[in-house]
C-alpha cells in the first residue's frame, strides 16, 4: 500500500471512529473502501478491549474491597497468626484469594487450623491436585467451618520430581480418599499416609494421567488402549 493511501485510510478511520461514515462510503474505488472499513473495524475492536480492560480492573479492585471483605480479612488474619506461630511457612504474602504455604510444617499447621477456636475449620471440602506447569505440582485445599461459616483456600506447591506433602488424613478423615485420588491422578506422594495406593485406576496402571505430559500406555493386559480401533479412519 502506498503512503498516500495509508494516510487517507488513517484519516478515514479517525473520522469513522467518531461516527462519521460519510467519507468512507463516498469512496468510489471498491478495494480502497473495503480496506478502510476493515481498518475501522479493527480500530473499533481495539478501542473496545481497552475500555473493557479498564472497567474490569476497576471492578475487581472495588470487588475486593466491597464484596469479599470477610474472606480477604480472614485470609489476612490467618496469615498473621501463621507468621506468629509457624514462621517461615508462608511461600508468598499474597492473600487475595488463597494462602500459599510451604510443605514443611503443613501437618502442624493443619492440626492448629482445626483446633484453634476462632477458626475451627472442621471440614475439608475439596482437595484438588493440579499441574501448574514450570515443573511444579500443587495441592489445593478448600476448608470450611461449620461453626463460624467461613471459608479459606490453601495451596501448597511442590517440585515435579520429588512431590511430597505431609498427609493430613488423621485430622480430616476424608483426606484419606482425597489424597489417594490426588496420588492416583498426579503422583504427589503424601508422607505419613497409612495406605497410599491407587484408588480409581487399576493398581498396575502406568503413569499419572492428569499431568500435562501424560502419554497413554499402549496396551493393558492385552487390550489396546489408545483411541483408534482398526477399521476406524
Amino acid at each position, binding site marked *: 500500500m502506498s503512503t498516500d493511501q495509508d494516510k487517507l485510510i488513517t484519516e478515514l478511520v479517525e473520522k469513522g471512529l467518531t461516527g462519521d461514515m460519510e467519507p468512507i462510503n463516498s469512496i468510489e474505488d471498491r478495494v480502497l473502501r473495503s480496506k478502510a472499513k476493515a481498518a475501522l473495524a479493527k480500530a473499533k475492536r481495539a478501542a473496545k478491549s481497552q475500555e473493557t480492560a479498564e472497567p474490569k480492573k476497576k471492578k475487581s479492585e472495588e470487588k475486593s474491597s466491597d464484596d469479599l471483605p470477610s474472606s480477604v480479612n480472614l485470609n489476612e488474619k490467618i496469615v498473621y497468626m501463621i507468621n506468629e506461630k509457624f514462621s517461615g511457612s508462608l511461600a508468598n504474602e499474597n492473600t487475595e*484469594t488463597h494462602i500459599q504455604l510451604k510443605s514443611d510444617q503443613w501437618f502442624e499447621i493443619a492440626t492448629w487450623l482445626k483446633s484453634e477456636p476462632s477458626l475451627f475449620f472442621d471440614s*475439608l*471440602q*475439596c482437595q*484438588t491436585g493440579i499441574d501448574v506447569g514450570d515443573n511444579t505440582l500443587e495441592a489445593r485445599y478448600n476448608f470450611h467451618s*461449620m461453626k463460624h461459616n467461613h471459608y479459606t483456600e490453601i495451596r501448597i506447591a511442590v517440585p515435579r520430581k520429588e512431590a511430597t506433602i505431609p498427609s493430613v488424613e488423621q485430622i480430616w478423615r*476424608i483426606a484419606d480418599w482425597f489424597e489417594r485420588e490426588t496420588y492416583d491422578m498426579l503422583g504427589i506422594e503424601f508422607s505419613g499416609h497409612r495406605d497410599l495406593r491407587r484408588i*480409581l485406576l*487399576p493398581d498396575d496402571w502406568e503413569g499419572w494421567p*492428569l499431568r500435562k505430559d501424560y502419554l497413554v500406555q499402549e496396551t493393558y493386559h492385552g487390550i489396546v488402549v489408545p483411541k483408534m480401533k482398526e477399521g476406524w479412519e
Partner: protein
Amino acid sequence: MGVVHGEEMVLNIGPQHPATHGVLRLQVRTDGEVVSEVTPYLGYLHRCFEKHCENVTYEQVIPFTDRCDYLASMTNNFGYVVAMEGLMDIKVNERVEHIRVIMAELQRIASHLLGLGAFGLDIGAFTPFLHMLRDRERILDLFEMTCGARLLYNYMWVGGLSHDLPVGFVESTYRFLDYFEPKIDEFVKLLVHNKIFVERTADVGRLPQDVAISYGVSGPNLRASGQKWDLRKDDPYSIYDRFEFDIPVGEGGKGSVGDCWDRFYVRVLEMKESIKILRQALSSLPKEGDVYQSLPKKIRPPIGSIYKRTESPRGDLGYYIESDGTNIPYRLKMRSPAFTALSVIDEIAAGWLLSDVLAILGSLDIVLGEIDR
C-alpha cells in the same frame, strides 16, 4: 451358651451385583455372618471425566457433567453453571432463575424416588420400587416435554438455558403436583412404618454427627445425623433465599439418630419440601423473559479460579474450576458428595451382619458414576 468362632472369610460383593448401586466392589471380612471390616474398591467406572474437561471447551463440558451423576443431571448442570457464572460475573434474568429452580426441584424429587425405591429393593420390597418408578416416569415426561431427553438433558447452559418452557408445562406440572402429593402419604403407609422395614433399618448403621463432618458427609446423610445444614439455606445460590421451606433433620423416630431409617425418612420429608418450593416457584414464574438473553458469544473466563458448591440430591456438589484465559478449562475438579458418603462405610458397617451392610449401603444413596467420574 458359647459362641462358635470359625476362620475369617473374605467375601467379594460385586463388582457385578444387583444390590450395589452400580459397579462397586466391597471386600468384606466376615466371621460367619458378622462383618468385621468392609473395604470398598472403586474405579470400575472411571471414565476420565477430568481429563476430558481439560481438552474440550466450556460449553462441551456440560454433557459430560450430566453423565457423572446420571440420576440427577439437572442439578449437576446447575452446579457447573452457577460456578461458571460466578467466575465470569454473568447475571441471568428472573425467568431463567425460576425455571432453573423448578427443574432442580423436580429432579430432586425424581432422584429421591429412585434412590428410595432402590433402597427398598435391596431390603427386599419389590412393590414400592415399581410405584416409585411409575411416578418418576411422570416427571421424566415433563422433562421430555421441555428438552427432549429422558435422562441426560444438557439443559442448563452458562448464561441461560437450552430450551424455553413449552406451552402447557406449568399446567402439567400443577397436575403432577396434585397427583403426587397424596402418593407420598401412600408411600409412607406402605414402607416407612412397615414393621419389617423398621426392624431391618432402625438402629442399624448409626452415623454420629462429628464423624459425619470429619468424613465430609453432606446432604440428607448429614441431616439425618442431626446437623441442620442445607446449602440452599446456609449458603444460598440462585434465588433460593426467596422461598420458604423447612430443613428436615433426623430425630431418631424409630431408633437412634443417624440410623438407616432416619436417612430414609429425611429423604421422604425432603420430597414434601421440594413440592412446597415448586408451588412457590411456579406461582412467581415471570411470564416474560428471554432465556437466551445472557448467553455469552464466547466463553472465555478471566484467569483465576473458583470453588462453588450447590445442593444436589446427594449432598454438596462442588466444582473447582481453574481457568487460564482460553476457551478450554485448565483444570476442572468435581467434588462429588457420593464419594465422601461412601468413604464412611467402613466406620459404620463394621460389626453388623452381612445383610445389614447392604441396608447401610442402600441408605447412603450412592451413584457410582459420580464417585468414579
